[in-house]
């Protein structure tokens, strides 16, 4: 049971990360902030689970990373989507849309 819960979170977090990076490279802290901002503070991504997710996605070939400097001239590691990452994002998005639609249909009162 505990394993399933983890997996769900994992999959969702991955999708959020990929989405965030759609608009260009970003470092870990920035990604977390972006997700927070876009979800209007509802989704609090723990940094503790963010970084392992980033590295996993990188190992799986969906992201690539590079050291760079931020606007404030601080050193940070920037992540960006690879081609495979873009494809995965598109696929995951349509899967998610289908998921939402199907569940929604089940949950809707009979018409």
């Amino acid at each position, binding site marked *: 049971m505990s394993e399933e819960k983890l997996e769900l979170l994992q999959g969702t977090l991955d999708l959020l990360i990929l989405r965030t990076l759609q608009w260009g490279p970003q*470092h870990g802290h920035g990604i977390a902030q972006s997700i927070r901002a876009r979800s209007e503070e509802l989704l609090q991504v723990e940094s503790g689970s963010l970084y392992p997710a980033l590295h996993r996605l990188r*190992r799986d070939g969906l992201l690539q990373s590079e050291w760079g400097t931020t606007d404030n001239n601080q050193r940070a590691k920037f992540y960006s989507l690879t081609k495979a990452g873009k494809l995965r994002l598109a696929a995951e998005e349509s899967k998610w849309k289908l998921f939402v639609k199907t569940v929604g249909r089940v949950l809707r009162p009979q018409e």
Partner: protein
Amino acid sequence: MAMWKRWTRKRQEDDDDVADELRSHLSIQAAEQSARGAGAQEAAAHARRELGNTTRIREEIYEQARWTPLESFVADVRFGARLALKTPVWSAAVIGSLTFGIALATKAFSLFYSLLLKPLPYREPEELVTIWTLAPKTNYPRLNASPANWRDWRESNRVFTDIGIVKSSYNYNLAAGGEPERIRGARISANMLSVLRVRPFLGRAFTPAEVDRDAPLALIGFGLWTRRFGSDPSVVGRKIDLNGRPVEVIGIMPEGFAFPSRDFELWAPAYIEPAVFEARVDNDYQAIARLKPGITMARAQSELSVITRRISAAHPALEIWLGRQDVLIEPLLATTSEEARRPLTVVLMSVMALLAIACLNAGVLLSLRASSRARELALRSALGARTGRLVSQLFGEIVPLAFAASLGAVLLSFLLVRLAASYLPINFPRIEQVGVHEPVLLFSLAVCLSVLLLVGLVPGMQIARQNQSAALGGNSRSVTGGSRMRRVLMVAQVALSLTLLLADGLLLRSLANLFEVHPGFSTEKVLTAHFVVSRARYKDDAQASAYLDSLVRRVRNIPGVTAAGIVNRLPFSGTAQTGPIEFASRAEAGPIDTDWRSATPGYFEAIGIPLLRGRLFNANDTGTSLRCGLIDEQLALRMFGSVDAVGQRFRMAAGSFHGEWTTVVGIVGHIHNDGPGADPRPQIYLPETQRMQDRAALVLSTSGEPMTFANRVKQAIYEENPGQALYDVKSMRQWLKDNLQSRSTVSFLLGVFACGSLALACLGLYAVLADSARQRTREFGIRLALGATQSRIASLLLREAGTILLAGSVAGLALASLSVRPLRSFLFGVTEFDGVTLLTVPLILAVTALAAAFKPALSAARTDPSEALRTE
């Protein structure tokens, strides 16, 4: 190796990188906080709190890196090795049990293979068979072949490419510069070497024509050639002095040729007199044949059987004392390994029992450790550790143990090979070919490792899965699964140990009985020496017997020698010179099988055979006087009852061959001629002057320790004849011991195994009881607190030991009664259900088990109740 270093370094670099990344995250976060107005320190602290446990994050990322299976395996093994080193006593016990068990099993298997199963070193060895003669009317289960039968078989069979014969009862005095030496030789037919498909590597074999005229030729063995002739090729064609006769060496056999067995170094033509063919006697030749390709042994057996029965029926005179003859065909390998077969089987079975015990012991110890780590394993499993990971780690713990045990076993095996050479009975055939047989070693290792895996992994897994909640709950009392299995393993160990002990007990008693048998002659203060009379030097019988007499005289004159004499074959020399005799006044009784011996007058006194009636031989019994003989009391009683047998006449009667009528002049004591345990035949004695024999055994009784006279005897004989080679100069006691050597060795080995298994069982019992005591600490604490005495606590633990012991003994007795069958032929003077053994052995077991239980019981009794109740 280099790749691994690179890999590790890269991972280290990656980890450093992640550390940097996290640090950069912290500083960005802190900068943000500062921008919002927090102080530098507060910002940093906030950032750290927000990120959480950086070490855990780094670990998780580190773990993501896909380990190659080899890497994780190596890491597990290293961890396992460290763990093993932390508990040295436990590890030593496991490794020790397995090493001991594997090494012994390998040695026994190797022996079994080398001596019994390995093909003979001839071409197409599976085609070679021995042809035994069956003569139902005699007491012998089977006989060798007679030359007449051999000739007839060769002529009429269609199943063999050829049949050869060999007579192996020859001793030669070799006098070739240097000390005279006795060489064992065999006489072979001209075709024997071609039947075996072996050729001399220098020179040539005999031709049939040479055999037919008894040409003075010989083939010598490689070892003899190297030893006495310095590997000089010019020996071929040279004449050597054998028994005083010049014999030409026509060939040298290749290295490793040991036919019919290890000791033989010389081969001469088997000249057979026409009279022997006529009379169809002299069943003294081993017939070896080579099957034609495609012919099965069954087919050869039935065809030869028909032929033999037909021939037998055509000679009714022979059938009177032989019955209708038949044949038995067996593979040559079986014939050669005959003597070693039964003892080896017993040894092998007991070693398997020991191996089983060793594995069981290792299992018990591993199981104990697994259950002590049950909580840890269960916790990890509950926290989400993959089963695969746990299995891999358990595996890693077993591997170092297995490796150490394997290494130890290999080393010990090779050591045992060296020891075996000095311990094995000298008369085991093919002993020169014993070594460590690699496939056997691998097999034993494989068996042990698989057992180790089974016993190491299964309990670990079981415990991890079953006891997740219970173990986490903290009450160790509930971890019982492993302990039941351990009890079963202990019962099995006790059962097997008991079986081994019982078997050894029976063997030892048999051996003791055998040593105590009075064989009819003295075994103390008697010295023996063997030699062969050179007939070339002492041409006629009168000269030869005069020679023997002067030898006896010289030896008799040695101070300290109380009597001396000569006989052609000592007791316990094997079965030979036996044949039927018939009495003139008891013709209807038919011929009786007896041992024929030729002796000088002093023999009986020297060896301690008593004279019961009449007289012994004396100087008046010469070659020309009345034919006289002695019979033993068993024969006298059997043929004549209370009537005095002195004066009766008898003669040798084998088929159509008849000896001269001989008058009984005295009756002597009966002896066990074949061995202390066997007593199949009575003996008759003729004087050497009247029945001269080339083979001679000098017997003298001494006033002191027999072997101290050996040099003086050699000196005396040298003075009479410097060219006389002596061999087997031994005390009678040593002679008896050698006869029983095979039996002694088996009893000794079995004793070692039984003690080893007892030690292992004790070890296991100790470990199990100690663990049980630890588990029951709480219970003991409560009992003590409630007023139980210390002895009561101790007795609780002892009761546990007792249950295991009882169950094990019952199982052991059942097992023993099933498996004692192969021992039957070894038993002497005891039955399988010998009372003494059945009482002492369980007693020994109980005492040893008590010793093992002592310490745990003692510490259980000394439990401090308050301590016990406090600890979990």
